[in-house]
């Protein structure tokens, strides 16, 4: 933005010094494994401590306004912070421990929330004290989200919510849920929806965890049975929930573009090293499996072109905080690249890439099979690959909407 080069370098030095003082060296590079779970193990006192310090500094949400507990940094400063975090192999655990708080709900509250809502909800997200889930999908409203039927009735001083959501990630451990509900049954499908923030700690809310193919059970069926939502917990105007909800989805997609800076901590080995170990090399130092070599190269080229596109989009968008339609392109590209990568790793590891548990497999191998399986969801959630393509065809390419809706 307006930072001069010197100011930015000053900030970089400050960030480096702060990380030096506050990020425990023992956690360096452990982000990969830690970021795969929603909560920090109680026994990991250093990690808990790190999360707390990061939250208090506001640097888990670096660009959010300082008045609500954010870091108050400019985009460039935030970028410098992420670079320094990468350098220190540090990571931001709050991205996981707040559920969808940082990536999706927070930015939407900042944009659409009342002053009161911002003051009540944002600081808790910044400090990592609250876990948010999102109740959009229903058994009969997935891609066709607008056909949702969970309803909220105005009973004077509060809303009464009834209906069923499904695939609600983290619902069972969440404190709050952003729920799309129908508030007007006569209006056109998209015009009768509102966005309610529902306190999950109440008798009217029930969750049933559903096990995923990767073994873990991070998502749930969520039942609202005369659940209560306060009047001051509607985000955006009555019946304007579709606009609010779609905006939030853009934030979700923006968080799924594959920009992992400051998140992963680079614990993983390079593909090259994995390939060389499992497939071996010939006398000239090339991968011994020529077929694998060429497919691996094609993948690495895809990965590179994805990251170059990401960099280009970021550069072009600098200065305007707007989430553009380009996020749709990046989401599909990112899931394709990540899924390709996971498939290749499993293939390279041969039968060891299919180890499930117990002896005979390295932690890296056991991790690979789970990453491969859970990664299949990337092209399903946040608007499936097909729905992204429909959006690109319609909104970006201007092709007529026929059956290709969404």
């Amino acid at each position, binding site marked *: 933005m307006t930072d001069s080069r010197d100011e930015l370098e000053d900030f970089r030095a400050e960030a480096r010094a702060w990380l030096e003082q506050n990020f425990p060296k023992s956690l360096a590079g452990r982000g990969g494994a830690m970021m795969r779970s929603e909560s920090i193990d109680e026994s990991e006192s250093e990690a808990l401590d790190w999360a707390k310090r990061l939250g208090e500094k506001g640097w888990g949400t670096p660009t959010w306004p300082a008045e609500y507990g954010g870091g108050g940094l400019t985009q460039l400063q935030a970028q410098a912070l992420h670079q320094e975090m990468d350098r220190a192999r540090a990571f931001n655990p709050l991205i996981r421990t707040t559920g969808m708080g940082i990536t999706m709900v927070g930015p939407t509250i900042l944009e659409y929330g009342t002053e009161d809502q911002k003051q009540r909800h944002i600081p808790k997200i910044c400090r990592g004290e609250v876990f948010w889930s999102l109740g959009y999908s229903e058994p009969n409203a997935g891609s066709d989200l607008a056909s949702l039927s969970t309803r909220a009735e105005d009973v004077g001083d509060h809303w009464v919510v009834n209906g069923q959501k499904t695939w609600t990630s983290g619902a069972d451990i969440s404190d709050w849920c952003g729920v799309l509900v129908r508030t007007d049954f006569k209006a056109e499908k998209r015009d009768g929806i509102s966005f309610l923030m529902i306190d999950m700690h109440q008798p009217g809310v029930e969750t049933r965890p559903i096990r995923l*193919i990767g073994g873990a059970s991070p998502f749930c069926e969520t039942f609202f049975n005369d659940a209560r939502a306060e009047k001051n917990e509607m985000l955006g105007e009555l019946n304007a929930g579709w606009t609010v909800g779609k905006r939030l989805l853009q934030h979700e997609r923006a968080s799924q573009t594959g920009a992992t800076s400051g998140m992963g901590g680079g614990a993983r080995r390079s593909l090259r090293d994995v390939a060389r170990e499992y497939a071996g090399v010939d006398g000239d130092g090339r991968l011994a499996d020529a077929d694998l070599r060429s497919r691996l190269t094609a993948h690495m080229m895809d990965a590179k072109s994805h990251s170059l596109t990401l960099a280009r989009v970021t550069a072009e968008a600098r200065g305007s905080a707007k989430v553009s339609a380009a996020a749709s392109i990046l989401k599909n590209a990112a899931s394709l690249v990540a899924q390709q990568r996971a498939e290749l790793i499993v293939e390279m590891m041969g039968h060891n890439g*299919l180890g499930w548990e117990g002896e005979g497999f390295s932690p890296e191998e056991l991790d690979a099979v789970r990453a491969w399986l859970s990664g299949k969801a990337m092209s399903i959630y946040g608007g499936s690959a097909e729905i992204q393509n429909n959006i690109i065809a319609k909104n970006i390419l201007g092709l007529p909407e026929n059956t290709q809706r969404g």
Partner: protein
Amino acid sequence: MAALTEEQSLLKEQAKAWARDEASVAKFREMRDSGNEFGFDKATWASIGEMGWAGIVVPEEFGGVDMGYLTFGVVLEELGRQLTASPLLASGLVGATALVLGGSEDQKQAWLPKIADGTATVTLAVDEGPRHAPARTALAAEKTGSGYALRGHKLHVLEGMSADAFVVAARTSGSPGDSAGISLFLVEAGASGLSRQRLITADSRGYASVGFDGVEVASDALLGEVDRGAEVLDAILDRGRAGLAAEMLGTAAQSFDMTLDYLKNRVQFGQVIGSFQALGHRAAGLFTEMEMARSCVEAALQAIDDGSDDVAQLCSLAKCKAGDFLHHMSNELIQIHGGIGMTDEFDAGLYLKRARALEATFGNQAFHRDRYATLIGI
């Protein structure tokens, strides 16, 4: 190509009905959840034994029915549809083939009748690393006064926890990487110095890592000629690959049917999702792949029965094309089912996990493309 005979068609119907009613994917799931150490249900295997399927390629004089590999493929395809777990392929096809092609009269007498009726299982122990590479055999068989001593290990041995005997590829001369110098030995599971450890895999089947710590065998444990095992090993593997290809075809065909069914029933935007051309064309493309893969699988099995000279080539073709189709199909199975596809309650994940294991067994698609290239001289 291979139009099924009346006998084969009848068997196909029988196998389909049995698998659906008695050994369905629900049964497989039960077995998985029970933590079954062998990776298959003993009662299911006993029924297979009673039906005589483990003797399909065993000559009649040794208690089999000698109906050939295409017939075997027909059964494997139907069991592949339901993910029916059993040592049928590992023992009834691969183990039996090893004995038929390489076994001495005594070895055949001792093992084939028991393989055929399912009362004993014999499996092939070939790979030593996670990736299929038979020529890299390093497990050493050293000559002793009365026979050989085997030292080394084998990884991911199919049905290795339950097997009664192993056909072990061992090195009697040369060094890892050479095809020459490999010999095959028939080793009983109870031999002293032999140890096995269960490997728990994503597809929940019975794999074992098998250790040979100076296992002593007599000279008559040799299966085929010393140092010249590679050729017969290749022939055994090819028959195994063709059988795997048939199983893969079944697993993929069932995935296709499940997907097609969902396309016809799941409604979004007020219409069945199959009405979206983006999905309809994908289904049409998968159907095309399926028909092409089927031709390759049947041709390979038929070529084995006919004793054609292009068996190796066709087996690599079949394993690769069935593998490509299964790979693609298992991913589409998940994607087209959306959220439901990601749940363990639904069966898609079971098919996906099994798919990759089948792909990796006895050479993945890349292995067989490379082998095919070599065989056709490019």
